[in-house]
């Protein structure tokens, strides 16, 4: 018995493209403790969506898995990467691990009634009569907060607003009572007011159904709201991992510093935003040493030669930066960030 319902170990994935091989995932490790929410944070191209696709068995056909394991289950963990595709589809996808996609405008079938879309998975995975499946679908619609559920069953997606469509997508995902819900930027396409409601809904459902949630996003504000643990990804690697408090109140990796400082903050009146110079590396040409070194003003000589290992800061907090090496010089946080961290710690009474 272990406490993690999902563990990703040394995941390594390359994409074969016309331009050459892209080493998109370069050794990713993370755990999803049962009943908790783990966030994968990063910019586009950091590999967060590819990791999600590997977990859900949706990798494109040009992906080559060079190695690693994705262990699912607490009692007798099974490796999802070596499982035959057919078993994966029948036993795991939808049934155990379900996904909420980013854009509710495109993830629903425009020619199918809402009711049929929700029952589709149920009829496929469970021995259940059509009438029972529809009954269950109405319950699900009520669960995700859709008024007049019975009437909505006959609606088509275009008759609903964006927020309602995302609720429908969540209902579809929850139909077979999965253990893990993977949310791939579920609110990026929505307005802030709707976003806040959807996030509250996911949290409430998690509490009711004991779901474990993987949350993929680039928005640190959303992470602060939903996550228990945070994995910060950069160029196909996890560069910092910790509890949400550790990442937001005591970040150690310069990339996390940059991300936090670049977030506009409603509390301050700073005239200028801190921005991370440059742009993420192209993994077609794999960077040598620390991939972030070129954008990091604290980079040292060793960053150009050797990839930093994960240094441990606390039981749950790790970061991959040479700055944490005992021989490294002490660096001061950028002043903008220092002031902000102090303020946010104070607001949260965090010591």
């Amino acid at each position, binding site marked *: 018995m272990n406490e993690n319902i999902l563990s990703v170990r040394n995941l390594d994935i390359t994409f074969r493209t016309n331009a050459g091989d892209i080493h998109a995932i370069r050794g990713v490790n993370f755990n999803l403790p049962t009943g908790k929410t783990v966030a994968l944070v990063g*910019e*586009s191209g950091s590999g967060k969506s590819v990791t999600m696709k590997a977990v859900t068995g949706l990798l494109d056909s040009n992906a080559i898995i060079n190695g690693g394991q994705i262990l699912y289950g607490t009692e007798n963990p099974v490796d999802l990467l070596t499982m035959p595709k057919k078993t994966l589809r029948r036993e795991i996808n939808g049934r155990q691990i379900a996904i909420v996609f980013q854009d509710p405008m495109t993830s629903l079938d425009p020619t199918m009634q809402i009711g049929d879309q929700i029952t589709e998975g149920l009829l496929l995975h469970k021995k259940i009569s059509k009438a029972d499946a529809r009954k269950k679908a109405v319950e699900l619609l009520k669960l995700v907060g859709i008024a007049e559920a019975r009437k909505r069953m006959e609606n088509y997606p275009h008759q609903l607003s*964006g927020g309602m469509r995302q609720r429908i997508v969540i209902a579809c995902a929850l139909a077979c009572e999965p253990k893990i819900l993977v949310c791939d930027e579920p609110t990026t396409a929505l*307005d*802030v*007011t*709707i*976003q*806040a*409601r959807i*996030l*509250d809904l996911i949290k409430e459902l998690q509490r009711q159904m004991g779901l474990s949630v993987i949350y993929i996003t*680039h*928005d*640190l*504000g*959303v*992470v*602060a*709201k939903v*996550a228990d643990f945070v994995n910060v990804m950069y160029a196909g690697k996890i560069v910092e991992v910790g509890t*949400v*408090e550790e990442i*937001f109140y005591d970040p150690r990796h310069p990339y996390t510093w*940059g*991300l*936090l400082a*670049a*977030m*506009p*903050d*409603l*509390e301050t009146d*700073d*005239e*200028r*935003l*801190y*921005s*991370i*110079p440059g*742009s*993420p590396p192209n993994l077609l040409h794999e960077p040598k040493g620390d991939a972030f070194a070129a954008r990091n003003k604290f980079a040292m000589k060793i960053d150009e030669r050797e990839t930093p290992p994960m240094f441990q800061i606390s039981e749950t907090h790790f970061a991959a930066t040479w700055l944490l090496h005992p021989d490294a010089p002490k660096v001061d946080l950028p002043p903008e960030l220092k002031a902000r961290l102090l303020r*946010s710690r104070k*607001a*949260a*009474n*965090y010591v």
Partner: protein
Amino acid sequence: MSEPLLKVKNLRQHFKISRSFTVKAVEGVSFEVYAGETYGLVGESGSGKTTIGRSIIRLYDPTDGEIFFDGKKISGKLDDATEKMLRQNMQMIFQDPMSSLNPRKKIGDIIAEGLDIHGLCATKEERKARVGAILKKVGLSPAHAERYPQQFSGGQRQRVGIARALIMNPKLIIADECISALDVSIQAQVVNLMKDIQAETKCAYLFIAHDLSMVKYISDRIGVLHKGRLVETGLTREIFSNPVHPYTRSLLSAVPQPNPVVERRRHLVSFDSDNVGGDGEIVRVSATHSVLENF
């Protein structure tokens, strides 16, 4: 205060979908933008913010209302001279840098298109020099002029979009959600760039966005749009410290903060959108802050 650079009076924009159905996207919006300032227009999707931008720059023909730009009326039928003036002095930066640049044209030609149309460069050398200079200003290199859009990242393409708008030396730039398609770390770069350019060229921005926190950084004044009406306008400080309209309050309460403990404690200010809307009286909170009382 001096004459406003842009004055929008009672702008209405309706779209006739069928004989019996008209979308009333903008229902009587009035505001002013002064030279050299940034006016932030905020609202959720469907509130009419993009439509306003497009009506002002005359991508749409306004149904009703008047628009004055630099003292000239630019609503209604445009004569050649006014149109020329408008096209030279008002420019737009579009939302999606992936789809707003012609993939078959070189960056240099995209940027210089305005110069070519208005015949502003006498010689090829002058054209090249101006394109090079503007590329440098937005943080790219003059050598990039020979490349095609697909060779650039999203952030770089949006810089090209900014360069294209800037080369005409416009007095007003309409920036329609110009950062929402970019990554967080790149958003900050682009916003800082826009601020630097404004300090240098004294151009005014009409900054259209749904992301309140970014709007706060860049805007001097803010207008909050809801269902095609401006429900609250004021200085940025006033809107953020003393929101009055329930819609503004709910918007502010929904912006996620990068602070987990605070975020967990926070409660959404709910907002009954069915009972809010329609016409109302405009009430002054202060000399610069006013609210539409339709709640």
